[in-house]
């Protein structure tokens, strides 16, 4: 059982890094990214392919994953940075799906739906059965480091400019800030983190397959971030742990509710994730921004009467 808990905590840490990545892109730079799973996949595949095909050292795999994903994130930003929020949502969602389709079909590169197995796990031979615990510690250290760095970024001049851009890009540009450069940088940082998370996952489970990278995962991360408090780095981490532990504990419901099939329990779990996100949106009246966003709308469209 301890092994199981260790595994869950490890997944939670990986999701925490993803949540932090989303926080940088959205909470700090104001660009919602429904396609974060695409960057997650990117990092995982880069590291997996380098270490399995080219027998590169794992550290190199991690580095390449972070740099490669940062690069692709920067590129993506160029395409999407002028889009409105809801358009951005559609486009980033589409991006993740396209990444998954490519991963599934370019068999020569990614081994398609068979996935890549036998991804090397760092120091596995040395650690033996202690590997799981050691890896958890490794992940937690990375989470802590990332938190530290991101908090510094948030309070730095760079972070302040990002916040200004998030509030109103036009004003920021008027004040002489090169909005494009900042957004690209922010997205690249977020991308690097997502790529790091991807590599962490790949070298932990030693197996990746396109099926993992589905929108459901994006929703988990959104839930983690919104539950923890957007814009709040610590909240992102705590949110991720809470979400993972809640979800995994429902797996044991199967013993308690025997009349439900495994598939029904999986459906129930997913239902609860959706419900969770919805409830978080209700009970965080500040909506999805850490400070209320003074959006300039005319008289409210649609429903006018209070509920």
């Amino acid at each position: 059982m301890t092994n199981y808990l260790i595994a869950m905590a490890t997944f939670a840490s990986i999701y925490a890094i993803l949540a932090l990545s989303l926080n940088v892109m959205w909470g700090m730079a104001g660009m919602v990214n429904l396609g974060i799973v695409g960057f997650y996949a990117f990092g995982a595949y880069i590291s997996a392919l380098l270490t399995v095909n080219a027998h590169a050292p794992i550290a190199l795999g991690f580095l390449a994953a972070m740099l490669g994903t940062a690069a692709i994130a920067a590129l993506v930003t160029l395409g999407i940075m002028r889009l409105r929020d809801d358009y951005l949502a559609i486009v980033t969602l589409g991006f993740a799906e396209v990444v998954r389709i490519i991963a599934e079909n370019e068999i020569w590169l990614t081994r398609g739906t068979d996935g890549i197995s036998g991804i090397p796990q760092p120091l596995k031979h040395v650690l033996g059965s202690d590997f799981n615990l050691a890896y958890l510690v490794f992940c937690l250290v990375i989470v802590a480091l990332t938190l530290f760095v991101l908090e510094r970024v948030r309070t730095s001049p760079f972070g302040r400019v990002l916040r200004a851009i998030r509030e109103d890009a036009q004003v920021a540009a008027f004040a002489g800030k090169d909005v494009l450069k900042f957004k690209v940088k922010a997205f690249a940082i977020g991308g690097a983190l997502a790529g790091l998370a991807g590599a962490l996952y790949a070298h932990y489970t030693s197996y990746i397959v396109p099926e993992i990278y589905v929108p459901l995962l994006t929703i988990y991360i959104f839930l983690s971030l919104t539950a923890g408090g957007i814009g709040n780095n610590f909240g992102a981490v705590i949110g991720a742990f809470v979400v993972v532990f809640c979800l995994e504990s429902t797996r044991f419901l199967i013993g308690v509710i025997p009349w439900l099939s495994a598939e029904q329990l999986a459906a129930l779990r997913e239902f609860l994730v959706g419900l969770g996100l919805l409830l978080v949106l209700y009970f965080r009246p500040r909506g999805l921004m850490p400070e209320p966003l003074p959006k300039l709308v005319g008289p409210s469209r649609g429903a006018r009467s209070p509920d």
Partner: protein
Amino acid sequence: MGNSFITRRGALLTGAATIAAPFVMPSSAFSQSGPVKVAGLVSLTGGGSPFGPNSKLAHQAVVDEVNAAGGVLGRKVEYLAEDDATNPEAGVRAARKLIDVDKTAAIMSVWASAVGNAVLPLCWENKVMMLAIAAADTIAELPHQGYFVRTQPHTALQGEQFAAFAIRNKSQHFYLMMPQTPFTETVFKGIRALCEPKGIKISSVIYDAKKTSFRSEVDEMMRAAPDTVMMGGYQPDDIVLAKDLFRASYKGKVIGFAYGVTPQFIDGAGKDAAENIYSIEPVPAGGSTAYARLKALVKKDALDTYICQAYDHVNLALLAMAKGGEASGTAIRDNIRKIANNDAAMKVDNAVDGLKAIAAGKEIKYAGASGPCKFSDIGNIIEVTFRVNQIKDGKIVEGVQA
């Protein structure tokens, strides 16, 4: 099967692992008390779902029988089953639970090759034995250190059967349509190698099994006008493909794997679309006593190869553990050939008799319901026969001359 480098490496690894094992095995493997644990990782949902429930049934029936007769090594046998949903990701998570939480010694009857491919590394890392149905050649070629055997002939052998069918029927253009699996490329290559020298044109396409319509792929195929189509998918995509072939009024021969062309396939595709479709099937040891025993045990009149294999898996696992004197994956690995490959020894067809014989110090050869149950170094089954089936009037007719 594989080149000599791989078998030598496999042998080296196996040898090294066997010597090193006692020194690095976690102490829990030596526990002399508590139940003996074996697990089935079966497909209750997804493409393998026609067969998963039967595997579970066979496993449980044997375990119950063995427990009633006193268990293994004086201990009760505990059986667990998890659904792999016929997909590797779910399979890996389920396997982790079985290995990490439940501490099973064996993972039995993995059906889909993609799942086998994904789960096997977990097994050998944790010294858990995999006894599988999954047939992709690549699985046996992984460095599994001996923690793998399968009772299903590997796909290169099956591919040969398709080629033989095309040659026998003097096909001129054989169009191969398969979903992506670990064995797709091997099968294509194997068929080409056998058919092209005989002047048969081979075309191939790999389709996305999750699609709900293969209209475009069938269009492309019809333009090529082949006389024989190989429908190499699992049951769900076979159903969709068969319907699209019917819609397009394809008039040539169609042949598939028996694991896709099942009675439920006929239900799903409908009598019209299913009519005349051929399939290749490894022949279960229909005449064997094990087969007859299994029929009585699970109370079924007809058995497919998969339920037979599941029956053989659990018998082999328990007998090997008893032979090795230890309820661990390593014991199964080290002793399975001792109870399965030994033709000269006394034949047993079930665990209860075999356990008694082992306890009395006798050598045994387990003769299974799915076939001879003899394993090569890397875990492939040796000595297999096949037959061709055909659907006539909504029913599968076994062993036709074709």
